[in-house]
């Protein structure tokens, strides 16, 4: 099967790749652009470990085809920090031990950032429902939710 040429933008960089029409955006990010921060936990859109933002919208990159990325603006976990300055969510996740094994962390950070962009003042329930598409098997979510809520509060105070 012949491959398609795709031009897109990832974390502010213009990139190109050739992909099989069956390959997902996640496959392309990981195998063609070597951006392995997004993880494949299920391949069926159930675990959220592959979460990225596409034109500002939170998506499971395992459910989107690589060819569909043409002309889009994609943001992955690798693009969350501003150079060597961590995003407040990243900092709080470390301080709160909101990760144990860390495999779900990239997806949860992308999803949590998306939440705070849309709703800077979420209730605990809203945060829990927003992150319900991101599975974590280690933490029981307690420290994750605390890290997100505290980041939201600090960002509100700072703005």
């Amino acid at each position: 099967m012949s491959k398609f040429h795709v031009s897109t933008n990832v974390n502010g960089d213009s990139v190109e790749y050739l992909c099989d029409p069956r390959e997902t955006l996640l496959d392309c990010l990981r195998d063609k652009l070597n951006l392995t921060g997004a993880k494949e936990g299920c391949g069926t859109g159930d675990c959220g470990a592959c979460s990225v933002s596409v034109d500002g919208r939170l998506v499971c990159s395992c459910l989107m085809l690589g060819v569909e990325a043409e002309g889009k603006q994609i943001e992955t976990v690798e693009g969350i920090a501003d150079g060597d300055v961590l995003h407040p969510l990243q900092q709080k996740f470390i301080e709160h031990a909101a990760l144990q094994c860390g495999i779900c962390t990239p997806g949860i950070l992308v999803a949590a950032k998306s939440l705070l962009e849309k709703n800077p003042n979420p209730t605990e329930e809203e945060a829990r429902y927003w992150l319900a598409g991101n599975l974590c098997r280690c933490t029981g979510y307690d420290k994750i939710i605390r890290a997100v809520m505290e980041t939201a509060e600090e960002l509100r105070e700072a703005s």
Partner: protein
Amino acid sequence: MALDDRKSEFSFVGTRPNRPDGLDKVTGRAKFGADISAPGMLHGAILRSPHAHARIVKIDTSKAEAHKDVKAVVTRADFADVPFKPGLEGEFWNVLENVMAGEKALYDGHAVAAIAATSALAARDALKLIEVEYEVLPHVTDVDKAMASDAPVIREGAADYSVPAGMHPNVVRYHESGHGDVEAGFAEADLVIEDSFVTEATHQGYIEPHACLGMLGNDGKGELWCTTQGHWIAQKTCAALLGIETSQLRVTASEIGGGFGGKTTVFIEPVALALSRKANRPVKLVMTRSEVFRATGPTSSASMDIKIGMKKDGTISAAQGVFRLQGGAFPGAPGDMTAMCAFAPYNLTNVKQIGYDVMANRPKQAAYRAPGAPMGAFAVESVIDELCKKLDLDPVDVRLKNAAHEGTKASYGPRYERIGLVETLEAAKAHPHYSAPLKPGQGRGISCGFWFNHGGETSVSLSLSEDGSAQLMVGTPDIGGSRASMALMAAEVLGIPYENIRVTIADTATLGYNDVSHGSRVTYASGLATIKAANHAVEKLCERAAASWGIPTDAVKWENGCAVPSGPNAGDFDPRPLADITTHMGSTGGPISGHFEATPEGAGVSFGTHIVDAEVDPETGKTAITRYTVIQDAGKAIHPTYVEGQYQGGAAQGIGWALNEEYIYGEDGRLQNSIFLDYRIPVASDLPMIDTVIVEVPNPGHPFGVRGVGETGIVPPLAAIANAVSHAAGVRMRQLPMSPPRILAALKDNG
């Protein structure tokens, strides 16, 4: 450091610094199993049986081999001829048979052949070119049916010496233990309750699927990168299955995306190496989620009968349990562990327990956090709760009355050293959760839980750098922040800042043998070895200082990161900080390192008590957990935040097991829910905050008092939640998971 001068005042231990691998893990830099590639790499894919039980009549790989993108195809013939032995004696054979089927496919998802091709898509496509002829055989997946006389035989000769004569060949191991006279004890009781319980198999549910990259040459030398809880066992097992020398295979553990016991063995690693040997190129193999569910893990399913007698004052006069565990088509279901743990929290005069290890046509069970213990606790603690209810006794008071303590003869034999069960129960009683009012429709449950904890073979090496920083090499993969704990313990001994210590998970070529990260052993055993390796380095630092001062070594002691004279008689010298000694080490005797290798035996058993509130919706049968408190003895919490994390994670997994998770098999013996949509683990909106109380009753077997904390936290939840749900619903729940249909059925049966 002798264990009798155990430390109790700490500078670093007990603080909560950021973990050393935090930055890598929040930026996406950390390299997990599937995050690596190699020049010339091929991609592997595995063909799996669609049948629960079938004879493999013929495998024709010729069409696949002829395909231009396919570089290698392997079947069982491409592995070593490992000898078959009964029970767990032949574990290498069992693992090989699981990794690649021999004469029969033994469960839905059993590997029968594998391909390496130039791309992942090509490998997946080429699987369709392999033709397998099966003769489908009768199958059995239920534990009680697998023990019945008419059950299909999975494998003749798999039972070991422990199984009494006359049992079905599917019963492969038998355990019986206890003490006293249970019949006399039941005769003394004011109330005896006898009941039966069932739990379904659940999966460890780590979010990272198994992944590896293997390279093996025809010279018998190889390299393997894999996500694993123990790379030395991976090395040893792969070498045995491929017929190469262990030392010729170097294994590097990737960052690991969860394991919970499920990554303590190998599945795809020997297959990648076999493909690589045939293709003479590196081969990467990554499982799909469906493969993870169908062919790895899960835990055992269980069927259990419990009989307990109690006096009116709450004293348990006798306790008896029969535990039948199904562990898939291989020996290994932890019926013995279930039996030994079930009554372990209690000081009993009369106790008897029997455990069965039973085979069925399911995937080979793997350890899952305190393997076997949660099921037994569910059954036993449910009966104790029912006795408390019928005798109108407080469930915490009854457990306190019967609680094991130092000197108690455990239900499984030995006498306990200092343990902390009573302290967890007293903390439960004093906790505001226990006396908080409940709303209508809610119920409260409590349960105790026990786990042995483990020591295991351990090897640690620490080397000091000229600038006074330290490199620590440990061999236990870090699943939940253990590098932080190791650095804290090393800092405590060396007296240098936590941040100046770099902890690395060494590969198999760099350090002596290390047992797997299991049995809650890492902070205990690798921690003990870290402390002793650091002490070893400190001895050398003191020798160098003594030599520079011209005084005997025993006239120097180590204090706050400095060598100092041990007393006024030793002489008057200024303290020499660590960096002051290391900066000259090249010219004063050479590099300074510390090592420790041993199999520490004092892991120290662990107990916990959980309190949970549940609310049942009588219309839908759905249960909400409204409040949860974990109280557990950590001995000494090295990094309390990560100890809390272990408690919370164990509770969350227990909530999933109790309420929702189960392997569902169709009549055809095929697994029906092999994706996360259908096998639903708890999500953020399912859970409340999980409160924790860290009790610290120091373990006499560790220099700082550490007890492992990883596993005990999953033992009480099944029972505590079942007790809460039973009170909320007004009907005793005897089968897990307590999914909405089961609760509705129980409510209906109850009128």
